[in-house]
């Protein structure tokens, strides 16, 4: 069973407020190693130098969107196996289909509560301790 304390998470969102909010929620769930990136390009830079256990990424971002990031992650030798959760809006049903084809592990519709986030994470990496 994975322990939240040791799991290395990367939050990707262009909005600082949403990033901080997600960080707060993750901290509430016991996560302690949290990295942040503003867009896909930055996220890939982080993923290249940091070992990661989980990526939680928004879809709508400048430079490189969430789908682009997902594809880049899946093509990256070091990061290709990192579980990936995509944040979507409530109208983004088709996006989820595309993301599934690109190998996304789970999706999460914004806005979300801590419980929903926890559930979505546990569906991907197993029950948290």
């Amino acid at each position, binding site marked *: 069973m994975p322990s939240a304390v040791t799991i290395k998470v990367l939050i990707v969102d262009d909005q600082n407020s949403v990033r*901080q909010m997600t960080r707060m929620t993750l901290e509430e769930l016991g996560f302690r190693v949290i990295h942040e990136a503003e867009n896909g390009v930055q996220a890939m830079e982080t993923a290249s130098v940091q070992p990661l256990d989980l990526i939680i990424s928004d879809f709508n971002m400048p430079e490189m969107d969430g789908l682009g990031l997902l594809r880049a992650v899946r093509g990256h030798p070091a990061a290709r196996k990192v579980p990936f959760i995509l944040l979507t809006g409530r109208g983004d049903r088709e996006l989820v289909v595309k993301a599934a084809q690109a190998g996304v*592990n789970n999706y999460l519709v914004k806005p979300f509560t801590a419980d929903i986030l926890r559930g979505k994470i546990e569906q991907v990496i197993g029950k948290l301790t």
Partner: protein
Amino acid sequence: MASLDDLKKTFFDECDEAMQQIELGLTDIRSGQSTDETINAVFRGVHSVKGGAGIFGFEQLVGFAHVFETVLDGLRNGSLTATEENLDVLLTASDVLTDLVSMSRSGQAAPPGFGGECRAGLEQIIEQGGGGDDGDGPAPAEFDGLDFVPVCVDMDAPDDAPATQAAPAGSGLNRFTITFKPKPEMLKKANEPLYVLRELRKLGELELICETGLLPALSEMEVDYPYFWWKGTLETASPRAQVDEVFEFVVGDCDLEIVDVTPAALPTVSTDDAPLAAAAPVALVIAPPAAKPVAVAAPVAESADGGGGRTKPAATTTRIELERIDRVVNMVGELVISQAMLGQIVQDLPEATSGRLIQILEEVVHHTRELKDSVMSMRAQPVGSVFQRMPRLVRELATKTHKKVRLEMAGETTEVDRSIIERLGDPLTHIIRNSVDHGIETPAVRAAAGKNEEGVVRLSAEHRGGRIVIEIKDDGAGINSERVLKIAKEKGLVGPDVQLNEDEIGNLIMLPGFSTAETVSDISGRGVGMDVVRSNIQDLGGRISLKSVRGRGMTIQLALPLTLAVMDGMVIKVGQQTYVMPLSAIVECLRPQANEISNLIGTHGMLQLRGEFVPVVLLSNLLDINSAPSASGERVVIITDAGEGSRFGLVVDELLGHQQVVIKSIEESYGTVPGIAAATILGNGRVAFILDVEKLSDMAVNSPVGAATTMKAASPALN
């Protein structure tokens, strides 16, 4: 850790940025200057507002942003078209969204039905496109009916475990097991196994194990004998033939076995695997479908360039509370004062000891200046943040006055100190209101005058000579000088017989109590406009000037200092008093000969300067202080530029030198003192006043010309 309130503040700051992006984008689309990225940027802006609003629970904001976003999405994917009418609705929607953001920020609930008309307009557009609304009920945790199964990853599994999973049937991937055992001949023919493996890897996902069992003891090792061999699997979209091709040149020189094990091709699929593959039709494989190694880096590079060619380096900005920067600014101010004091002491030392000190002090001066500039640049903000409110203003005014007006903006990125930005909004709003209300004519009048029906107001900013110059230019009717003069005379603002040129008449509109609007509209024309603007600008240490060409339009220029904290000044002495004059107001300093000054009747004295006459005034008279000429008896005339192109000379006793001074406001404690703008602390620790040159110019014009006030009478040395 940040509190929820801090996060909300961050969110609203982001909203401001997003609103700017939306407004600019829509305006660009309307004027036909848009690219594909423009509509995406607008969409992202609205999307960000909506996303954040959802998280922070601003439901009204979410509801409106959602409809707005739906229309933008339609435009983006081509199901809707950006007609002029649609764009008008979108521009109004951006105004409504701005209002909703500011209501949410201040914690107000929007009045019932707020923005309802606009929302109906947006919904109508959506219906035109045949698009349905997804509704804006609470967000679902799952999309109904979507065949999605979360992919669980075993965190404790060894790294390569997922990749060894079989490709699901029907994924379109071929799977081969490969055994590759080079023979000695292969190396002798200079074929390198490594290159073969690299080629193979380009075809897809390659998992190889190197067998090292043949490796002998070091002493027995031969350089050209292949001790290694490989076996493993390849998952690829390429057909068998292409895999064979890789081994084309070495096939005779190695033991090679390639077996097609693609699930569909295998008659014996394990019964355990089948239901799993069927349950998760799309999302089981973590490895990319046929990702070629070159494609790995490509999306990164392409997307980075895709955003208009600019690649944003990672995390190079940080948000700092303004208060903290202000603290640094204050400390720099104190540093400037201490340094001036130090300079004063060093100067009084005997030369033998001061030589080296002076050298070091000069370096300190240099560094302080750089420090000041860097801190000031931190406080600097682009004027765009004020400009961005103007398009909406112009749009609303144009609608109200039934005129067609286009606003052009330039130089939005020009930076100026934040304190100035904050106080620039009102004057700019006033001026632009005037331009649209009084300046630009109605379409019919414009057409009759042979002008384009659409009037243009141009707002621009640029740095010029250590100041920021903001220009508001319209192509309207210009100032009706006869009428202005007539009103000014009626109101007793000027004498009945006064003779004025066009520019001077133009400046009359900035006098207190002047209003020309025939009917006082609710937009402008209460006569509290331009004089307030002028005093606002002057309070900022700026100048305002006005040029009008009848029938062609009017230009108003604001020249403002870049900062309000520290400035370059000339320290001067009059009698026993020391003053500082802003260096930016000084054109030149000179010691005139007595015969260069003439006394015309009714003036203070005129200095003949390169063939032109410039009025000169004694500063001691203006400030009402006793002034005895210095021992040498020589006085200095400082030619100043008080704005509006009018020059005049101020007679002072002595110039003490150029120095950076820290501006300390005295208004709070003493109110406004005519002729004095602020105070500063000099190197000797004494307080000196900073002169308000523009006000002095006014005082010079209005001060009585009597006996003993003229230059010659008061200055024996010049006689």
